[in-house]
C-alpha cells in the first residue's frame, strides 16, 4: 500500500511540477539533430534573453525516422509544442489532421514572401501553418586546389562541364565527381533536381507539369536523365555501393574534385576539408542562356494545435520572423538561407557564392515536391529510382519518362 501511495505521489509530482513552475517550457520537435549545438548555444539563449519566463528545449530525432516518430507522438498526444515542418504534403497532412494550428494571423508572417510561405499553406493559400525558416540551394562544390592544378575553369555550359570531368578523369589523380547511388536520394536531389531546372525552365516547367500541360515524357523532362546517364563513368569505382557519408568523406578528404551538392553541406565541409572550396551552379546548355537554380524551401516551424502553451509558442514563432533570428540562423548555419525579407549579412564565402546566384538566375523549387508526390506511386520516390537507373545506364531516359508518366497518370487527374 505504501508503495502505491509513493508511486501516486511521484506521478502527481511530475504533473504538478510541470504546471506549478513559474516558467513555461516549450519543446521543439525536429529532424535536425546536426543543429542541436546551434540551438542550445545560440538561438535559445538569444530568445530566452529577450523573453524572460519562457524556456525552450530542442529535442531532435533522427532524420530518417522523424516523420514516423512525429506522427506517432502527435497521435499519442506526447509531441512537443513546436514542430519543425517538412515542406508541402507531410505538413499539410498534419494540418488537415488537426495537429498543426493555423498561424496565418501572426504578425511575424508579414516578413515572408508568398513563395516562401507556399510550402506550408493549404492549396488555396488561405491558411498558413508553419513559419518559414530556411531554404537550401543546389549546385556543385569543387576543390579549388584540384581545379588550379589541372587548370580547369569553372564550367558554365554543359559541354564545359563534361569537358572538365573528362580532364579530371584523364589526369587520374582525383575522382572526377563524388556521388554514390546506394542511398538513392542523392541521385534525384543532387542530380536530377540540381541540373533539371535549366531544362524545364524552372517554375514555368514545374507549374506546367502540375497543371498537366507538360508531361514527364516531354523532352525537357527526359533530357536531365540523359545528362545523368553520362555521369556514371565519372563517379568513383564501385559508386553503386557508395553511400551518402562515403561521398562526403571522399570529397572532404580531397580525393574527389567535384561534389554535386546542396548548400546544407557547407557547415560540415568547412569543418572537415582542409583545402579551399568553391561552388558553381548547374551548367546551362548554351552560353548566355537564362540559368535556373533549385532554391528549395526546406524547413519551417509550426505549432502543435494541442499545445497547452499556445501563447508562449506564438511568441516564439513571432520572434522567428524577426531579423535577429534570421541573422543568427543564417550565420550559424551557412547554407540554410533565410526565407524572410530581411537583409541578412552572411560571412561565409561559400554561402555567399551560393546565395549570389539568386541575383543571376531564376529560382525554383524541386519539381516533385508540390502536389505531385501526393499519391501512390509517389513521384519523388519514383524519381530517386529513375535517377539511379539513369546513372547506372540500366534504363534509357525515354523509358524512364514513360514509366514515371504512367505512374503519375494513374492517380493524378490533370495527367489522366
Amino acid at each position, binding site marked *: 500500500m505504501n508503495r502505491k501511495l509513493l508511486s501516486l505521489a511521484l506521478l502527481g509530482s511530475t504533473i504538478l511540477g510541470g504546471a506549478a513552475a513559474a516558467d513555461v517550457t516549450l519543446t521543439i520537435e525536429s529532424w535536425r539533430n546536426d543543429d542541436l549545438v546551434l540551438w542550445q548555444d545560440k538561438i535559445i539563449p538569444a530568445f530566452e534573453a529577450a523573453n524572460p519566463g519562457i524556456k525552450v528545449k530542442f529535442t531532435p530525432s533522427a532524420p530518417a525516422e522523424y516523420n*514516423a516518430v512525429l*506522427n506517432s507522438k502527435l497521435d499519442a498526444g506526447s509531441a512537443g509544442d513546436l514542430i519543425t515542418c517538412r515542406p508541402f504534403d507531410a505538413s499539410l497532412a498534419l494540418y488537415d489532421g488537426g495537429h498543426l494550428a493555423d498561424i496565418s494571423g501572426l504578425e511575424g508572417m508579414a516578413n515572408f514572401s508568398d513563395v516562401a510561405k507556399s510550402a506550408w499553406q493549404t492549396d488555396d493559400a488561405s491558411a498558413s501553418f508553419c513559419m518559414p525558416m530556411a531554404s537550401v540551394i543546389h549546385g556543385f562544390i569543387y576543390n579549388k586546389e584540384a581545379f588550379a592544378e589541372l587548370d580547369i575553369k569553372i564550367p558554365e555550359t554543359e559541354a564545359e562541364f563534361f569537358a572538365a570531368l573528362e580532364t579530371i578523369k584523364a589526369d587520374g589523380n582525383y575522382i572526377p565527381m563524388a556521388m554514390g547511388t546506394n542511398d538513392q536520394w542523392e541521385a534525384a536531389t543532387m542530380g536530377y533536381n540540381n541540373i533539371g531546372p535549366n531544362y524545364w525552365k524552372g517554375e514555368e516547367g514545374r507549374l506546367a507539369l502540375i497543371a498537366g500541360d507538360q508531361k514527364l515524357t516531354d523532352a525537357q523532362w527526359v533530357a536531365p536523365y540523359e545528362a545523368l546517364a553520362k555521369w556514371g563513368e565519372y563517379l568513383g569505382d564501385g559508386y553503386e*555501393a*557508395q553511400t551518402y557519408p562515403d561521398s562526403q568523406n571522399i570529397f572532404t578528404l580531397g580525393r574527389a574534385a567535384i561534389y554535386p551538392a546542396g548548400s546544407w553541406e557547407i557547415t560540415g565541409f568547412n569543418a572537415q576539408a582542409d583545402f579551399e572550396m568553391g561552388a558553381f551552379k548547374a551548367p546551362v546548355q548554351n552560353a548566355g542562356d537564362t540559368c535556373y537554380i533549385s532554391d528549395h524551401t526546406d524547413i519551417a516551424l509550426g505549432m502543435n494545435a494541442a499545445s497547452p502553451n499556445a501563447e508562449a509558442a506564438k511568441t516564439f514563432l513571432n520572434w522567428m520572423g524577426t531579423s535577429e533570428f534570421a541573422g543568427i540562423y543564417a550565420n550559424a548555419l551557412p547554407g540554410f538561407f533565410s526565407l524572410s525579407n530581411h537583409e541578412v549579412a552572411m560571412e561565409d564565402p561559400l554561402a555567399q557564392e551560393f546565395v549570389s546566384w539568386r541575383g543571376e538566375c531564376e529560382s525554383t523549387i524541386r519539381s516533385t515536391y508540390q502536389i505531385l508526390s501526393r499519391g501512390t506511386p509517389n513521384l*519523388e*520516390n519514383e524519381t*530517386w529510382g529513375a535517377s539511379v*537507373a539513369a546513372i547506372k545506364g540500366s534504363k534509357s531516359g525515354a523509358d524512364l519518362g514513360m514509366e514515371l508518366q504512367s505512374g503519375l497518370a494513374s492517380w493524378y487527374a490533370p495527367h489522366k
Partner: protein
Amino acid sequence: MKNSGIKWHVIVFLAPAVLVYTAIMIFPLFNTLRLALYTEVDQVRQFVGLENFRTLFGNPHWSGQFWNALGNNFWFFFIHMIVQNPIGIALAAILSHPRLRFAAVYRTAIFVPTILSFVIVGFAWKLILSPIWGITPDMLKALGLKWLYAPYLGKEEYALTTLALISVWQFVGIPMMLIYAALLSIPEEVLEAGEVDGITGFASFWKIKLPLILPSIGIISILTFVGNFNAFDLIYTTQGALAGPAFSTDILGTFMYRTFFGFQLQLGDPHMGSAIASGMFGIILIGVCIYLFGIQTRLRRYQF
C-alpha cells in the same frame, strides 16, 4: 486444495504470460487484421471490406511490388536453406566428433554473431564490403582475385544474395547448436551396434545419425522459414526503407514498413500496411501448416 475444482495455482502461474502475450501479441495481431479492412477518407476511418486486398493484388503498381517482395523473400529463404542449414549440420557433425580439440572455442566463436544486433552486423558488413574503405577489394587483390570484386551491395544482381549470405553468417550458429544437441543425445550404444555391423565414419553419419536428427532439421527449417519471412532489420539497416538498388532487396517486411509508416514524401497508410502485414501472416501461416500437417506428422521418431 485437492478437492477444489479449479486449479488456482495453474491460473496464477499462467496469468502473467497469458496477459503479456495477449497484450503485446494476440491483440495487435487481430487488430492488424481488422485494420486491413478499413481505409481513411478525409480523416474518417471507413470500413471497406476486402478493398485493400483488391488494390494490393489487382493494381499493377501494388501487386508488382508485392510479388517482387515475395519473390525476393523466397530467394532469401532458399539461400538460407541451401547454405545456412547444411553448413550448420556439417559444423555440428564436426563439433560432435569426440576427437576434435578446442570444440568449445569453435562453438562459441561460431555462435557469437547470433547474439549481435542487426545494426552492428549490417554496419560491419557494409564497411567490410565497401568499395571505398572496405578490406574486401584489397584482400581479393592480394589473392589475385580482384576480378571477383564488385560493389556487391550496390548491384541489383548480387545485393539480395549478398545480404542473405550475411544473414547466414550471423545465424548459422542456431542450426549448429540445435543439431549439436540432437547429435549429443544419440546414445553410444546405437553407434556401437552400428560399428559391430560395419557401419563407421561417414556411413554412420548418413545411415544412423542423420535419420535420428531429422526432426531437429524439420524444426530448424520451420524456424528459418518464419524468421526469413519476418525479416526486416538487416535489409533496413543496410539498404534503407527503399531496399535498393531498384527494389532488388525489397522483402515483405520492408515493403510493409514503407507502406505503413510512409517514407520521405510518401505519407504512411496504416490500412494498406495492415493489408500487407495480413498477407505476410497468411503466407507464414500456410507455410507452418504445410510443415505441421504435411511433414512433421510423417517424420518417424525413435525412442531410446
